[in-house]
């Protein structure tokens, strides 16, 4: 079952990375959206492997079922045939890519330096299926204030989106 776990991890990881690369490189935005969805789903799978089912569900429902629907929606609202025919990368692409890789190298160095220091506790065969309750407890007791702030943030975002998406009244 270790093998199964690892197989799943490798499957999800490879799927996520590959589709992420495709997202960044593809010309067609709809395809890009689909690849992002794929990445998100495989990330959800990773969550599942990490025994965070609630986050898995949240990821799927909110991210894939909500945010990405919004994305696809907007993509279909803004007509993209012409933007597909244009150059996809801006002038600074080379510098940017190089610097991003430098950043990645730095992180890589950091992780490499600390390799082996971190390890997951061994997983009991049957851990309590109470993940959702645990998250709920933490969220509504210890993280009450941030939760409220997040709700206010959502409200503000909703109003802002409505205002901006509204047809301009000339």
């Amino acid at each position, binding site marked *: 079952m270790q093998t199964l776990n690892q197989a799943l991890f490798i499957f999800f990881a490879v799927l996520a990375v590959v589709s992420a690369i495709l997202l960044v490189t593809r010309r067609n935005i709809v395809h890009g959206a689909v690849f992002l969805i794929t990445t998100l789903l495989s990330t959800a799978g990773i969550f599942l492997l990490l025994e965070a089912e609630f986050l898995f569900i949240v990821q799927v429902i909110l991210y894939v079922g909500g945010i990405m629907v919004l994305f696809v929606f907007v993509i279909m609202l803004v007509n*993209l045939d012409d933007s597909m025919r244009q150059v996809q990368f801006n002038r600074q692409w080379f510098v940017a890519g190089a610097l991003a890789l430098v950043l990645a190298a730095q992180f890589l160095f950091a992780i490499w330096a600390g390799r082996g220091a971190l390890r997951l*506790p061994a997983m009991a065969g049957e851990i309590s299926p109470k993940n959702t309750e645990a998250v709920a407890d933490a969220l509504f007791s210890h993280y009450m204030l941030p939760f409220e702030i997040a709700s206010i943030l959502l409200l503000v975002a909703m109003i802002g989106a409505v205002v901006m998406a509204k047809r301009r009244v000339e």
Partner: protein
Amino acid sequence: MIPVDYYLFLSLALFTIGVIGVLTRRNVIIMLMSIELILNAVNINLMVFSRMWGSVDGQVFAIFIITDAAAEAAVGLGIILAFFHNRETVLADEMDIMKW
């Protein structure tokens, strides 16, 4: 048993790809999607560390991050729609009037 490093490498890869996408793509929508990618990398890190310490705080923060992502997507897409209605373009390097 999968070492934590693997997860970190994975999230690092996603993060880097996201950064590259944000920095290089001209299409604003794809930039936003790359930002989602970066957020996902962060979420993976939070997951793995919360699993490592056996506490759900990381997951709570991940929830907040997802909330934030939702808000950001809503507002960002709203802006994009408004901009598209006015300027008929979604290319980032054509949105350059906000300077001196």
